[in-house]
């Protein structure tokens, strides 16, 4: 069996490789202008016909983002000729994935992006790109860093709300204070960092609260359960847990149930997934910060439409969609219920 193909000797291979690299370097230096690609586009944003908006959460699959979707689609339904295209990546930490998705939407020719940035510093370049192309951009829940002037943020004032719930925790623990654990979800994302900021601000003013453990849930329920278990093992005298979002609260609640500490270790946290509300009713969780994700989607879409229909003269302003502290006492109230189960017929606005 004769192999006609010549084998490349090591010398030849190195020569080949060397000349290849040299060629590439030459190309580079001879200033075949390598630059970052700027997509063409621009033009006035006033639009008369069908408006197509891409509404993109940080990730699909959480109750919170589902409510954003309901709000967005509700807003669209109240306008003539506005369509919402909802899509997202499957993990809140998939930054590259969200960037790719948004770029694909820009290419697809949507008129506006209404989105929640997974990573504040990375996503600002996508906002810039979209603005250059003449799209309208609105951030919901999480903005970018830096925040472009033309891009409003429709979100909760996380710092203030985090401070409020931490003060509640301090009041409940009383003058004796106690050991507390903190479960953030994604350092670097704006909502995570602002909820941390508000929390830590209050801690500074309350030295009787001793922060003994900080473990990220990575926005994943199973991870939250695991780290909370480990925290409980390491700190048997723990008094309270502050979890900065839905998976963290769910994981912490399940962990204390399993060790029999439900009700003894106070849990405070964010978001209002059905299991979290159940935990409040069962006294496993003391209080939750309820945001208004419905309103984020609703106002986000409306702002974008306002600008698209009105043209460049319309200035968009950021909106604080508000926060409500939910406890066993008020969970049955009608406005709280409307907040928890928003629908287009019963909008919590």
């Amino acid at each position, binding site marked *: 069996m004769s192999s006609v193909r010549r084998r490349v000797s090591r010398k030849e291979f190195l020569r080949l490789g060397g000349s290849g690299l040299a060629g590439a370097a030459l190309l580079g230096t001879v200033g075949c202008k390598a630059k970052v690609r700027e997509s063409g586009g621009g033009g006035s944003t006033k639009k008369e016909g069908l408006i197509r908006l891409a509404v993109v959460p940080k990730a699909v699959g959480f109750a919170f983002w589902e409510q954003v979707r309901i709000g967005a689609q509700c807003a669209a339904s109240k306008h003539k000729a506005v369509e919402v295209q909802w*899509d997202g990546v499957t993990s809140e930490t998939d930054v590259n994935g969200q960037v790719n998705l948004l*770029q694909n939407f820009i290419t697809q020719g949507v008129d506006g992006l209404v989105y929640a940035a997974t990573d504040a510093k990375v996503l600002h370049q996508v906002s810039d790109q979209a603005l250059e192309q003449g799209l309208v951009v609105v951030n919901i829940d999480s903005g970018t860093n830096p925040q472009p002037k033309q891009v409003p943020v429709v979100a909760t004032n996380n710092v203030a709300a985090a401070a409020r719930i931490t003060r509640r925790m301090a009041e409940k623990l009383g003058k004796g204070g106690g050991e507390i654990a903190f479960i953030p979800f994604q350092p670097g994302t704006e909502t995570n960092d602002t909820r941390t900021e508000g929390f830590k601000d209050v801690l500074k003013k309350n030295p009787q609260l001793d922060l003994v453990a900080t473990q990220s849930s990575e926005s994943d329920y199973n991870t939250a359960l695991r780290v909370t278990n480990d925290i409980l093992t390491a700190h048997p005298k723990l008094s309270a847990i502050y979890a900065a979002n839905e998976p963290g609260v769910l994981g912490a609640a399940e962990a204390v149930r399993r060790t029999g500490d439900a009700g003894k270790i106070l849990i405070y946290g964010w978001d209002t997934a059905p299991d979290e509300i159940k935990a409040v009713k069962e006294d496993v969780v003391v209080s939750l910060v309820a945001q208004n994700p419905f309103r984020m989607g609703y106002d986000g879409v409306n702002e974008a439409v306002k600008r698209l229909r009105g043209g460049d003269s319309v200035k968009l302003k950021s909106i604080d969609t508000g926060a409500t502290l939910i406890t066993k006492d008020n969970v049955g109230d009608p406005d709280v219920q409307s907040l928890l189960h928003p629908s287009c017929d019963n909008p919590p606005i």
Partner: protein
Amino acid sequence: MTATTEEQSRSTIRERLSGVVSQLAAAGALIVVFVFLSVASPVFLSADNLFNIGVQTSYTAVIAIGMTLVIITAGIDLSVGSVAALSGVVGVVLMTKAGIPVVPAILGGVFVGGICGLVNGLLVSVAGLNPFIATLGMLSVARGLVYIPTNARAVFGAPDSFRLLGQGVIGSIPIPIIVVAVVATIGYVVLSRTKLGRYAYAMGSNREAARLSGIPIKRYLTAVYVISGALAGFGGMIASSQVDSGQPNFGMGLELDAIAAAVIGGASLFGGQGTVVGTLIGAFLIALIRNGSVLLDVNIYYQQVIIGVVIWVAVLWDQYRRRRLTAAD
């Protein structure tokens, strides 16, 4: 003696033919999907969209080429996603905190990937660990190593010129595409014309026979994993360049995309089969499905199902092909 050689040459030709047929099948699928999307979506053929596809596929393609080499040896490298993240972060840290200029920092990232590959290779060839297990361990170790110094936070501050790697253009050709073309060409030459390539196929087809015919298994098997690690590192640098930061969470599940691309392109997990061209076809097919799904407003979950089904079809075809080969003998 002659009879065996004839048989061997016949089966080699048959193998090569069926390898080509498998590539043709994948290429055919790619063309069909491409044509379908051109017709179904008015923006598919736009310069912007084709640019996006090229750029978004680039790091997967580079990593998949490395994975192909490993799969040819009947091995697997599950660590490429974690290694890509580690390299991406190290590269950006070198550029920022250590103040090293961009190109050496990129090479530094690739080097880190190569070191991870070296560890994998030694575990497989010297310690005799199953590649699945060895690289599974590296998947965890590399991911942990990138979390420790960064606390899972992204690293920013890279100089503007770094963006050229993943987002730049020369004229109207995206730089990441040029990078893929260069890597693919080198990969093709290595696989088809060098000792390393030939030995890789030999080790994958029949490890014992390769050893008995005097191939220094340990050396070449380790080299294969080093290359896979280095290419994973390079892919990680490209991805970092696209988001202008080192992302510690990058690449989770990326190894599966790389394996899928190689397998769709004709590589066999039993070893001895696989080509760079096939892998590129596989990578672009997956990218087209993803890109097309957004353009056509298909839910992301359906994309997952479609890609999984494509993998099944590719692997079933591969098995059918092998069964026919052995049956004919």
